[in-house]
């Protein structure tokens, strides 16, 4: 039996409201708030990046797992905002948590799905008997071009999961990946901001792949939507996950505990993984939890978990995701946001 032995999340303290962004560009805040079902998003401080958030989320996962980090045999960081173009995020993370030197690490990239990719690899190595524990992290400090629709949702956060065979809190029942080649959203090298195909990113991209993966995993596992307690979908905005859930036959109350985007924004590689941590924070032993990620380009990874008794013993050992989301936060204005996100820079000598 393979499953998750520890999980953790990290959300930066700063926020910016949709209204604040809209007021700068002369856009209609109401239509963005209603159309996207997003009120505000997290903003990373200038001293935070994918690596710093991955470290904090991973430390929390280790606290819940109660393991010696030297026993972690693999560390994978999935992001589309790795701080270096060449030099791994994974090595900094592995050093910071104390997993070095006997550890395998790799950095992963697949738009918003890179987090679940790391999870899949970590899980697979444990399943194959290669390592005792594997850490998979999804973290991003995603960027939206000034004035672009994405600017209202691109946010920052991290979620970390440690897989193992002992003291499991969520057993892996089934996995399924659905992948096709799709130019729905991309960024060329040396470009600062990504570009996307507008409405092309909807039905043929997000919806097709999520539905493909969700239906695939449910068929493989022999379950129906009503058998599943909670489902978490990738959350580029508040509308898509609710709509795809409805199309698949899920009810709102199954989706809501893992739906963070309205107040968090889209944390890209952290998106569905963070929804999963928020779900673990409230799930009960025996609950079936389904997560379906989506990364443009395109693909979806799905995991089906069954919660064990252990979740009750460990969930309070580290901060809960919604506590961080609604805990002490600091709102910034657009100028400060632009400065933090390096959209404007100080002229130095």
């Amino acid at each position: 039996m393979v499953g998750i032995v520890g999980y953790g999340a990290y959300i930066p303290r700063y926020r910016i409201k949709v209204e604040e962004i809209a007021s700068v560009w002369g856009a209609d805040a109401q239509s963005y708030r209603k159309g996207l079902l997003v009120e505000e998003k997290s903003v990373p401080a200038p001293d935070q990046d994918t690596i710093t958030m991955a470290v904090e989320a991973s430390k929390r996962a280790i606290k819940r797992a109660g393991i010696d980090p030297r026993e972690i045999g693999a560390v994978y960081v999935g992001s589309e905002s790795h701080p270096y173009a060449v030099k791994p995020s994974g090595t900094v993370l592995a050093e910071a948590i104390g997993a070095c030197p006997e550890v395998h690490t790799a950095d992963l990239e697949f738009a918003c799905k890179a987090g679940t990719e790391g999870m899949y690899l970590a899980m697979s190595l444990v399943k194959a008997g290669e390592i005792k524990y594997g850490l998979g992290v999804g973290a991003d400090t995603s960027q939206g071009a000034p004035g672009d629709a994405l600017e209202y949702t691109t946010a920052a956060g991290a979620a970390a999961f440690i897989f193992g065979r002992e003291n499991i809190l969520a057993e892996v029942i089934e996995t399924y990946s659905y992948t096709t080649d799709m130019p729905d959203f991309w960024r060329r090298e040396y470009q600062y901001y990504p570009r996307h195909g507008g409405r092309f990113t909807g039905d043929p991209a997000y919806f097709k792949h999520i539905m493909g993966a969700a239906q695939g995993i449910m068929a493989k596992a022999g379950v129906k939507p009503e058998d599943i307690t909670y489902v978490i979908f990738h959350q580029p905005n508040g509308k898509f996950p609710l709509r795809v859930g409805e199309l698949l036959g899920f009810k709102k109350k199954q989706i809501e505990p893992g739906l963070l985007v309205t107040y968090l924004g889209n944390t890209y590689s952290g998106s569905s993984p963070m929804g999963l941590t928020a779900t673990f924070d409230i799930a009960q032993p025996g609950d079936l939890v389904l997560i379906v990620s989506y990364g443009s380009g395109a693909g979806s990874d799905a995991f089906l978990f069954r919660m064990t008794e252990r979740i009750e013993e460990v969930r309070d050992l580290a901060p809960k995701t919604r506590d961080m989301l609604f805990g002490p936060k600091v709102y910034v204005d657009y100028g400060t946001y632009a400065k933090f996100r390096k959209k404007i820079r100080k002229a130095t000598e």
Partner: protein
Amino acid sequence: MPTPSRYWREIPQRYRLEAGRCRRCGFIAFPPRLVCPRCQSREFEVIKLAEEGRIISYTIIRVPPHQFVDQAPYAVGIVELDDGVKLMGQIVDCPFEELKTGLRVRIEFRKIMEEGEAGIIYYGYKFVPA
């Protein structure tokens, strides 16, 4: 700006707060040392520092050294951790008006500085309100 090798050498301290505890008198040296300043013993064991503490004193730097020019103003303080060790670090995620001596803080992994657009990124510990 430390050079890459100078930065890398201190990683156990910067990333994991590894310190040395004197086997003879219990003094905790951070960073680790070869000679105990209290009892001159040369025997130490590696330990990790506590993760929370309180602010002993703080200031807000408004005229920074050149590598920190784009960060100013920022708060720096001396924190006494729960194991009695004192260390210096930036205090972040705290509006300046809320800074005060005695404030409980905890350690968080953050970027310290970047060497321009092309140099390496320096990581280390900072303090956030607990």
